[in-house]
């Protein structure tokens, strides 16, 4: 446990020296602050930020995650030569990256929100929750890919393909399925499909908060009914957890068997 904390602490030191984080925090800060200054209320700002969050956070997390893992190769080999468990090393690297990434996001978006609008709206909390969840999910996916693929170029390529799949292609496939099965009642299916993509899940959770569900007719009503009650919220959070834990566990398994 102590070694885990030490590794996380070292990672934090290492990361905060880089310029990456300054840029990342600056982008979110300026964007949120700017949206408020251009006269949006907190609901509109959440809505505008939503697209950015759903687009940028997975991309940055997954690419930065793989690069980080590859760059830590020598550090890992050094640690492995010491009497330190592989669990500590893997989790240390993961938490050492996700904690600062989420913190940066929370500060970049949260601070302008607090001094412009105060802490109030539901959509604001969902925005933060979705952003942090996506950071954790896509960093876990990044680590899985980086462990499985030795070659950097191949690894980075795979992360981009994976990001494209979740961010864009998946919705195309959903649309195809919905039209292919047009003659059947599809409402339950759409609910299920929304759980199989963390980005879609985040998007729908946020849309339901911003009172846009009314536009979504019967489907929207079904979504708000499902995600609005206790059971649905638990399912949604559980699904996000599974999306984080499953790739992390697979990555850990590969990591612990890996021959360095």
């Amino acid at each position, binding site marked *: 446990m102590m070694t885990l904390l030490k590794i996380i602490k070292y990672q934090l030191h290492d990361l905060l020296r880089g310029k990456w984080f300054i840029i990342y925090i600056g982008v979110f800060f300026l964007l949120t602050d700017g949206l408020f200054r251009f006269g949006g209320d907190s609901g509109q700002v959440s809505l505008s930020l939503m697209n950015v969050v*759903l*687009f940028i956070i997975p991309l940055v997390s997954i690419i930065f995650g793989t690069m980080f893992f590859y760059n830590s190769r020598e550090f890992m080999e050094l640690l492995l030569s010491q009497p330190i468990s592989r669990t500590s090393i893997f989790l240390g690297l993961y938490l050492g990256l996700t904690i600062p990434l989420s913190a940066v996001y929370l500060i970049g978006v949260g601070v302008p929100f607090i001094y412009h609008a105060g802490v109030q709206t539901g959509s604001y909390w969902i925005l933060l929750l979705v952003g942090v969840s996506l950071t954790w999910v896509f960093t876990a996916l990044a680590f899985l890919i980086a462990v499985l693929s030795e070659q950097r170029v191949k690894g980075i390529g795979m992360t981009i393909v994976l990001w494209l799949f979740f961010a*864009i292609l998946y919705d195309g496939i959903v649309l195809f399925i919905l039209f292919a099965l047009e003659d059947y009642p599809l409402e339950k299916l759409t609910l299920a499909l929304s759980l199989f993509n963390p980005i879609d899940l985040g998007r729908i959770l946020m849309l339901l908060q911003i*009172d846009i*569900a009314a*536009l979504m007719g019967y*489907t929207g009503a079904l979504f708000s009914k499902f995600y609005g009650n206790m059971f649905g919220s638990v399912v949604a959070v559980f699904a996000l957890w599974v999306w984080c834990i499953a790739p992390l566990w697979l990555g850990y398994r590969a990591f612990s068997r890996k021959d360095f």
Partner: protein
Amino acid sequence: MQLLRTILIIPLVSSALWAGLVEVGSDYFHTTISDGLKASLPGDTVRVHPGTYVERGLAISHTLTLIGIDNPIIDGNHNGEILTVTADGVTIEGFTFKGSGLSHLDENAAVRFEETNHGRISHNRFEDNFFAIYISKSENILIENNAISGLAISESRSGNGIHLWYCKNINIRGNTISGHRDGIYLEFVEQCVVTQNHSTENLRYGLHFMFSNHNEYNNNRFDNNGAGVAVMYSRHVDMHNNVFADNWGSSAYGLLLKDIYDSNITDNQFNRNTVGLYSEACNRIQVEGNNFENNGWAVKIMANSMDNVFTHNNFLANTFDIATNSRQNFNAFSQNYWNRYRGYDLDKDGIGDIPFRPVKLFSLLTEKNEPALMLMRSIFVEIMDLAESYIPILTPATLIDAEPLMRINP
């Protein structure tokens, strides 16, 4: 002869001068309104002094002016009808009507005009009634400056605020109506003017009319009603300067049109509705100078609508500007302002040089396959819409505004 004529005339004149007044109140000879009405003669004025009168089944069967002083309360105790008028030229003014009885068999109203002519209902308050004002088979009635509020909870256990059936020449002006099933309901009504009313927070429609030709609605405000305003099966309807706002819900419309012909919808405001204007099987409607702002869908126009003209409207910050369910289009759009328009105007005539396509691919897809709405605002959909807007394949090719305005209509 002269003397005889004088003798004959004097009583007539004098009766017209002073016999016409009947006073009702706790300090007067008549302590109940029903007594006062029984004692009155045609053409009399019945003055009711302040107080609460628990009465039901009041009937006026001859010409009469019924005036309340400082809003006396007539309480029907939720039992049957309060006041029924069957005579011409009756005025009812200055009362508070409370508690006409809920019934599943009868449409019990606080005030009912039945087969009358030249009546007036003004400056009354209506509270917690089943139906408030019910006019049937009447002509030339003025309903003015009444405040009508109900406590409707469910559609089946509530009535309408102002209900007109088979009427002609009715003027409904300056009323506020809330908490009923439909705020104003008209069926088989002609040459009626509805103006300066505020209909809000009714369970179903703020204004609902069917089979009512040659009517005019102007300067009204309809907001926060369960399903907005519904206009069906009518011709020659003129709607202008109205506000349709905040009808937000899964099947709420600012203005729902079904089978409307030869009508005008001009200079109205449609703000924050799920669907601003919904048109089904409507022909030859002129939609001009309206403002559509912050709606989910500004206009949903079904393919069975033909020859409608949309011109000089403003479309601002709507999620979807126009939605339709077909690749065919039989309506004309020209010289509207679209805040989504990204064209240019080289010759500086105020009209964009490239046409605007207000129908997004996604809105067409969701009309055909509603569950696809789960993809709303996803990146894939945005890319698809962008591609379609440059190379239209699926969206109606003729549904374009060939002359989009560069600047907003004043």
